[in-house]
């Protein structure tokens, strides 16, 4: 019993926020995440609504604006 308690816990999932609107989208469907097409260092997350309305995203690292 004590061994079960001592087992290391799984780390909580990393929270995801939409790069365009800033909403928390960790458990949402229809989102997309990819590394910035220009610099390849920053993770870009886009929620379903921002994708649908073609809202612009800007990479905080290099300033690239898409889509």
């Amino acid at each position: 019993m004590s061994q079960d308690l001592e087992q290391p816990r799984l780390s909580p999932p990393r929270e995801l926020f939409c790069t365009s609107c800033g909403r928390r989208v960790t458990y949402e469907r229809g989102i997309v995440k990819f590394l910035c097409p220009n610099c390849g260092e920053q993770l870009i997350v886009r929620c379903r609504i921002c994708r649908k309305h073609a809202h612009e995203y800007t990479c905080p690292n290099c300033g690239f604006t898409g889509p």
Partner: protein
Amino acid sequence: MSGLRDPPEDYLEGFPPVEDKDLLVPKQKYLSAGVHVGTKIRTKSMSRFIYRVRSDGLCMIDIKKTDERLRVAGKFLSRIEPKKIVAVSSRIYGFRPVRRFADYVGAVAITGRVLPGIFTNPRAPVYYEPEVVLLSDPKVDKQAHDESVKMGIPVVALVDADNELDFIDLAIPANNKGRRSLAFIFWLLTRQVLRERGDLPPDGELEEDYEAFATRIMGIR
């Protein structure tokens, strides 16, 4: 057979002022392929890529932005494992460019009808899990586009003046209807991906000209 012809006079109308040194290829090549010629229909989301509207109503796509986006798309695709890139074209003029692109880059080409479930149904015989999907026209390649949206796969697409930018993550503004234009864009993208990967030197050229990427018209003289 260099593939370069003198463009008609009206091609020069509405072409943005840009120097050859700022572009991946000389301006003349863009002109001869007709990459900058858009459609008469213009969507609001595409207005940021349109330089001006010609007197006959055709929208002229800003070549500088096409050039810039091709560089970015080259970087983006070069970072992804080649087998995880899927290039799709349901348009007949896109068959050969997409296949040639896939041959050079090592990607997977899907031409013609896209079977439903290709990205969504694991039981389908043609099921595939790509990391990025490259569309030649989001309007025509709707099945592949819809399925990649459902699965959360980033979409890179060639977009014309009449396309919407919904569910597209990286747009490459270009004429996606012309035979020569499609060939030229895919040729340029192939060269850029190989350069970014290091398979070609920074100023290296492909063995073939872009005419080799163009669909051949049989039976027409």
